[in-house]
């Protein structure tokens, strides 16, 4: 199963490091990272594969949200299909 992880918030050092560390720890393989700074705001979209993950999507969502809270950004983890449905015919 592929997931889309989005981060939106105020830019600071180490956002990607924190998140990629979490994914690596739980066997979630990063496929693509797209990141930019829009008007001082950090925007990142990361697509990853959970085929070999040792956690459920629900647990990963909770852990990611917790990290987001610690570093002051919003982190969402969603099933990729919602974006496929909406943006691909």
């Amino acid at each position, binding site marked *: 199963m592929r997931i*889309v992880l*989005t981060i*939106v918030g105020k830019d600071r050092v180490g956002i990607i490091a924190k998140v990629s560390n979490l994914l690596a720890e739980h066997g979630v393989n990063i496929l*693509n990272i*797209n990141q*930019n700074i829009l008007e001082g705001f950090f*925007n990142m*979209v990361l*697509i990853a594969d959970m085929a070999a993950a040792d956690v459920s*999507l*629900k647990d990963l*969502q909770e852990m990611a949200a917790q990290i987001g809270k610690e570093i002051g950004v919003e982190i*969402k*983890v*969603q*099933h990729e*299909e*919602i*974006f496929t*449905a*909406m*943006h691909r015919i």
Partner: protein
Amino acid sequence: MFEIKDILETNRMISENNLDVRTITMGISLRDCAHPDINVTAQKIYDKITKKGENLVKVGEDLEAEFGIPIINKRVSVTPISIIGESCDANSYVPLAKALDAAGKAIGINFIGGFSAQVDKGYTKGDKILIASIPEALAVTDIVCSSVAIGSTKCGINMDAVAEMGRVIKKAAELTAERDAIGCAKLVVFCNAVPDNPFMAGAFHGVTEPESVINVGVSGPGVVKRALEDVRGQDIGAVAETIKKTAFKITRVGQLVAQEAARRLNTQFGIIDLSLAPTPAVGDSVAHILEEIGLESCGGPGTTATLALLNDAVKKGGLMASSYVGGLSGAFIPVSEDAGMIAAVERGSLTLEKLEAMTCVCSVGLDMIAIPGDTSAQTISAIIADEAAIGMINNKTTAVRLIPVPGKGVGDVVEFGGLLGYCPIMRVNTFKPDVFIARGGRIPAPIRSLTN
């Protein structure tokens, strides 16, 4: 791979513009629950709903978390109880309403629809008992919804039932007078009722439906309003095009959720209902879309035209996004559930007569409208007849959900709470239709019913 702007657009629709899946409604057939002893019937109904629907709420919550999109309501619709109760040796179906209420609460849903009868052309014994049971059933239960179909394009309009429903609505108001006539907020009178509608209060599981089914109602007036902000100043074609594209995206999400829900609940996917259903929340209003298109206030001149455009564009966009479209599919205009409609009533721009005109071009009818408590049963019946005539002649569904609030008059406000919202009492034309309503009988099916 996705572009970053696509991903952020989807998430902005959800977090800022109130995009949600409004309801996952599981239709459950109760046709195998009929029994001569009403207590046995009630038990069978309870057992079947709690078994078939036991995972509905959990699946809804799981999908909500996985896809990151709110699924506001999980609900159940059942076979019209007039059919199930008919074999019972009983003169009231209130025990069956109580069984529905208890079963719905046991599985954690917030409404259960189907305390219903279809009397387009006349009554059976079960229809009569059911309709007579409605006021008490709605007063003694919390989440049971009721609907009565009194006409259709194919059958004409049953004026005896129209007259009776005026009295039933008054009685339902009386029995729930201390709660601002909340009973009436759970009662819909239909012309051209649809068997696969997932929205309350009018949902029921029609006899053409399978053993069980998942129907999904999408929403998203806020998303449409936001998208239209980007085409300000452009011509009306750009407005239609923008609504279509937005409706497509909204519907695709509904389709995804519906298919996945049906798979996990081990049942079949029925339909997506392409409706823009407002809530009282800020930024979730159909009236505000019409105002974004260019009206000073909903209800003013231009309202019917903009609503027609909106309703049509939503269907065109949604059709391609889903393999099965059904239900009511169109824009809803419930007054108390739409912040923009409420404001329009308060500033005097939206009247009952304009709402009637609007129902000619949108998906349902006179919905969630609070009227003075001293409105007569005959006047309510005549309003039902007018609305049913619009549905019958135009081959569309129309519905009436009026709330005559005891002890309140024009200028008062009534608060239903939650998704049902609040509403100022609207003025009703007081010239009397009593002689017309007293005639009874049946309005013949119109010429356009003869299509064979």
